[in-house]
């Protein structure tokens, strides 16, 4: 193993050669916001939140796919970078239908966390209110496309770890969406092993496990009455 030394935000950092700037920064305790990065699967550089400045390179580079090199001088936070990150998050909020109050992932959501981290309290962009659907055809899981940010973590997890490749992306531009199987209802996709890795990978409440929302609670009001009767009258059948 060879080690290189570099500077991140003027702090000297030693990192294993071949590691990414994101890894090196995290190891050194420097946080760079990300959404599409997920430890354990490949990186795609899609969310553009981890863009950093490297001395001598005019372009901004994504920390998640940029390898460390000897003598590299990295800056992770500048007013410009912070502004770009804020704009990116604002655009994410304005392109989907993110209504935290009715979301299963409320307060346990990476999009929310990133919004707080970059200091986004409102979006200056016009909300698009796109017409997107919800697919609950799968017996155990559901996907709400309104909350999807197209980070493609589900696609990569399913392909690279489970090996089922149930998920993929279809459509272009604003019409791009994740699909299951050959754009079939999720419940009809035979390749799905119901492993639930996509649920674990999803940063928002887009892919969820059924039965975890309040509205899905099945209350058995008759149970109390039955118990009282059972104890008092020793009648244990309903």
């Amino acid at each position, binding site marked *: 193993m060879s080690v290189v030394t570099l500077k991140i935000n003027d702090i000297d950092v030693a990192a294993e050669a071949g590691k990414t700037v994101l890894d090196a920064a995290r190891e050194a305790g420097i946080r760079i916001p990300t959404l599409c990065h997920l430890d354990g699967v490949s990186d*795609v*550089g*899609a*969310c*553009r939140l981890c*863009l950093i400045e490297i001395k001598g390179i005019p*372009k*901004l*580079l*994504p920390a998640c*796919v940029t390898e460390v090199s000897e003598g590299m001088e990295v800056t992770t936070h500048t007013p410009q970078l912070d*502004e*770009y990150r804020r*704009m*990116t998050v604002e*655009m*994410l909020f*304005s*392109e989907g239908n993110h209504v935290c109050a009715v979301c299963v992932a409320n307060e346990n959501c990476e999009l929310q966390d990133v919004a707080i981290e970059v200091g986004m309290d409102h979006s*200056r*962009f*016009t909300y*698009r209110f796109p017409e997107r659907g919800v697919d609950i055809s799968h017996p155990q899981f559901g996907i709400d496309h309104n909350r999807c*940010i*197209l980070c*493609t973590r589900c696609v990569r997890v399913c392909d690279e770890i489970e090996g089922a490749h149930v998920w*993929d*992306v279809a*459509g*272009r*531009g*604003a*019409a*791009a969406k994740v699909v299951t199987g050959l754009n079939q209802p999720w419940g009809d996709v035979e390749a799905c092993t119901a492993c639930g890795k996509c649920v674990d990978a999803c940063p928002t409440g887009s892919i969820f496990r059924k039965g975890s929302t309040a509205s899905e609670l099945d209350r058995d009001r008759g149970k109390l009455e039955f118990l009282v009767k059972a104890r008092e009258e020793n009648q244990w059948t309903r």
Partner: protein
Amino acid sequence: MERAELLEQATVAKQAQKRIRIHCCTSTGCQASQSLDVKKQLDNAIKTHNLGDTVEAVGVGCMGFCGQGPMVEIEDADSPAEKKHYQKVTPEQAESIIGSLNGSGEADAIEGDPNHPFFSRQLLIVREHSGRIDPERIDEYLAVGGYQALHHAIYEMSPADVVQEITQSGLRGRGGAGYPTGLKWATVAKMPPGQKYIICNADEGDPGAFMDRSVLESDPHRILEGMAIAGYAVGATQGYIYVRAEYPLAITRLQKAIQQAKRKHCLGAQIFDSPVDFTIEIRVGAGAFVCGEETALIASVEGGRGNPRPRPPYPAVSGLHGCPTLINNVETLGNISPIIRNGAEWFAGIGTERSKGTKIFSLTGKIRNNGLIEVPMGITLREIVEEMGGGVPGANNVKAIQTGGPSGGCIPDRELDTPVDYDSLRELGSMMGSGGMVVMDDDTSMVQVAQFYMEFCRGETCGKCIPCRAGTVQMYQLLTKLLDEKATKRDLDRLKELCGMVQATSLCGLGQTAPNPVLSTLHYFEQEYLDLLQPDPITVAAANRG
């Protein structure tokens, strides 16, 4: 195969040609105006006039003057300098054109002037045989010296010599960005031996551009030859032509050309009985602008979704199936065989100091003579638009020229004396691009132009990265708001901010250059934006209160 044998084949092919050749354009543009019927009637008339011994009608590729098609040209081997051009020929006129050959009456067709600046100012390198040979017959290509450059490269030059020759010629990528071709070749050539690939990028998708389509339709063997030379130079044995499905004629002709070339041992295993192998396959793309981007194109050839990925690694290091891959544009590859044939010095003598050779443009928009032109680098925009193009029809004047498609920008009329080369165009906030050149007149609203290109980008972004996916939507929205006369100064500021952000943060070239049409129109025609602005309601309310 000995060189003599190839030369003999060329001579035989040449001798098989009749003295008088009537070239009839059968490219997509002219076919759309019945040129196939014209060709049929020409054939019939040759029969009825019993001229079959000396005259033949040849279906050829594009002659360039597409706005005046179908084009018919008469070339007499006894007096090759005296060509006759007929424009907008109808099938009915074919009879009189053939009749005029033996003096029985005048041709009843519009005769064009072959010495018109539209033709005389051109310098044909890539398009030298375009409109003069039948693209569907390899004999015609051999008759004009085809595949001799490949033969020469394989037998007389080492791969390193070929790379060196291309480097010294100063050729730069014609896809738009202008990366030095020799350097690209050298990088792939330097990669360790093993599986390498050559890809011809024929995914032309700029609005208003049809150069690559025309080159493929008119002279497909030239591209195959260029690819084979590239394969020999960098050590690749497999090539792919990535062409969009919207170009069915180009695909058909390429398929024919590949078969014919294989049969003549100009392609395939052991080319010309040498140890060099090179196979070419066609990959048909569904037609996505983003697939013109190298990494997205590779993903598409691999059978995946045409999404770009971050670079590095560059395709020269890790491309198709992870192997070193050389990707060149159609026009770039079209320059290869002439460079090998005539030498790097000859090529380097054409053009400007940093932009060598010629460039093909598809001249369209508000202009009298529209069509394809191949001009030496360094020619001014004014010469192209006013002399060759004949200026704007009617009483209007040129307002701007859009070059570089959705990645380029608008150049105002006051900059018309700018020489056409990579660097000057970039300095003006535009770019060479693949070669679309759209002329706009006084009546054109530049904000609308910006909106049009943004609409294009909004629809063509793959949607992988957020700045491009959502940013283009927001920019389009703001431009529409401006045009609806509902926008205030804040909206304009937001638009400018977005341009900067999308440019700086997008993943690939599509997003990084998408704001260019907005930025360049803002730079040169800001007043048009300002004229659309409405008073800010908050400021107005404050003033009323105050």
